[in-house]
């Protein structure tokens, strides 16, 4: 019973980890850039979701759509003005541009929103479904369902729409893509916007149980990298598997080890996967 409870919790939270991490892997897949500032867009998404709740009275699950839209637009601008300029630079320059971006966004948020912790109150955030001895947290379930929906939407977009296919084509072979008449710059803009937008969406979705403040991104950054590495850098399907893996590892490892060591367990898995299967658990499939 305890194991099942842990498993259920792990799967639910894993869905959320997946959706906040998909953006990171998408950006890497399309552009080969590891975006260290990705978690800052999560924070921005949380703030947008929070303000939509505070000013407009919108539930964060609805506000998440606004969060997506706002951060998507911001992402397009960031891609166009900053990231685009380092696409051909050495990886070190790419990494450190995003580190600079991280510092800027975090502190701009501190200036703009203040340092307070903010959280929303929703009617369902302290309720749970009960199935016998099993508790299913409603905010977790809601976040999970929203993650599944957004994951499906992304899958449909990537596989069923011209733009999605064009984006995948750009990721797999930018030169060939432009020979198909695909504007690679534009695809990269959309990919970056989509990547950070989805992360922002994930941020808003967890608002019913999580608190937002300008440095909240730091809580997620290493986690996101773990998810993405487990799934394979650049693999969207991998991020989903990786998210589930991280959620379940965290949840189950707490039964055998002190909770304090849950990150240690994750990092060891992370290093092992990198050393033995750098392409990630899902392998070559993108």
């Amino acid at each position, binding site marked *: 019973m305890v194991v099942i409870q842990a498993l259920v919790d792990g799967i639910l939270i894993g869905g959320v980890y997946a959706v906040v991490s998909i953006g990171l892997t998408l950006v890497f897949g399309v552009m080969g850039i590891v975006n260290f500032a990705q978690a800052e867009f999560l924070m921005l998404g949380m703030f947008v979701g929070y303000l939509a709740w505070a000013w407009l009275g919108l539930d964060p699950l609805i506000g998440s759509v606004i969060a997506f839209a706002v951060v998507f637009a911001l992402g397009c601008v960031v891609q166009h003005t900053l990231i685009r300029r380092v696409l051909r630079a050495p990886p070190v320059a790419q990494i450190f541009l995003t580190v600079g971006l991280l510092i800027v966004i975090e502190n701009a948020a501190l200036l703009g929103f203040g340092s307070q912790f903010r959280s929303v109150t929703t009617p369902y955030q302290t309720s749970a479904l009960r199935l016998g001895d099993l508790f299913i947290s409603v905010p977790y379930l809601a976040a999970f369902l929203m993650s599944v929906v957004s994951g499906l939407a992304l899958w449909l977009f990537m596989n069923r729409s*011209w733009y999605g*296919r*064009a984006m*995948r*084509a750009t990721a*797999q*072979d930018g*030169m*060939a*893509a*432009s*020979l*198909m*008449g*695909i*504007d*690679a710059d534009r695809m990269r803009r959309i990919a970056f916007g989509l990547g950070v937008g989805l992360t922002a969406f994930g941020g808003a979705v967890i608002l019913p149980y999580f608190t937002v403040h300008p440095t909240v991104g730091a809580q997620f950054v290493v986690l996101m990298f773990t998810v993405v590495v487990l799934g394979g850098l650049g693999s969207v399907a991998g991020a989903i598997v990786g998210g589930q893996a991280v959620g379940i590892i965290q949840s189950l490892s707490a039964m055998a080890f002190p909770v304090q060591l849950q990150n240690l367990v994750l990092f060891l898995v992370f290093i092992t996967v990198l050393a033995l299967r750098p392409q990630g658990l899902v392998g*070559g*499939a*993108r």
Partner: protein
Amino acid sequence: MSAPVATSPGTEPLLSVEELHAGYDAADVLHGVSVTVGMGEFVCVLGANTAGKSTLLRSVSRLVPRSRGRIRFAGTDLMALPSHAVPGLGIAHVPEGRHVFPDMTVEENLRLGAFAVRHDPAISGRFDGVLRLFPRLAERRRQRAGTLSGGEQQMVAVGRALMLGPRLLILDEPSHGLAPIVVDELHRAFLDIHAGGTAILLVEQNTALALSVASRGYVLESGRVVLADTADALADNPRVREAYLGI
């Protein structure tokens, strides 16, 4: 050697490249190359590995970072366009090394070829046509392109280009590294395509093969056109026979 630019649209060649200088880093690869392809013509470009053949093709597709000179296609100045605007004019380019999208299925690869004309209702008909031209691709429709053999990948690359319904098909080393039997199949297909009215600009390492399918050819050496003639005349040219046919 460059053909005078025709003023009347009826006589203007489909593609005309004049005095093209192009290159990547510091040094130019092409030093004033002029090449034309007439409406429905089959032209090949010969030369050694680094003579600049690919650079010429890539200049037409606007993939070369630095270039000056004139490139016109059916009345449009290509020099002013970004690379992604070129296919929309009806130029399909099959790059050297095939460059299929490895993680997409054969069908997805083919359909992407029509991206530039994605609202064209003729696409589905063209798709069937490609499968008829390369029946092997029909069998492997749902297979990931990266898992195909070299020859099949080349068929995907060519088929993908055909999905555009191009007026000019640019082929860069299509038989490179393929088994002879596959090469034969491909070249039969090229002749079919040409017979359908599509102009072809072919770069081919296999000189003999190229001259056997094309009607006219250019020989490039160190970024300059050193010979331009009909295919038959080139095949008889002692210089070509010595340097490129090894006879």
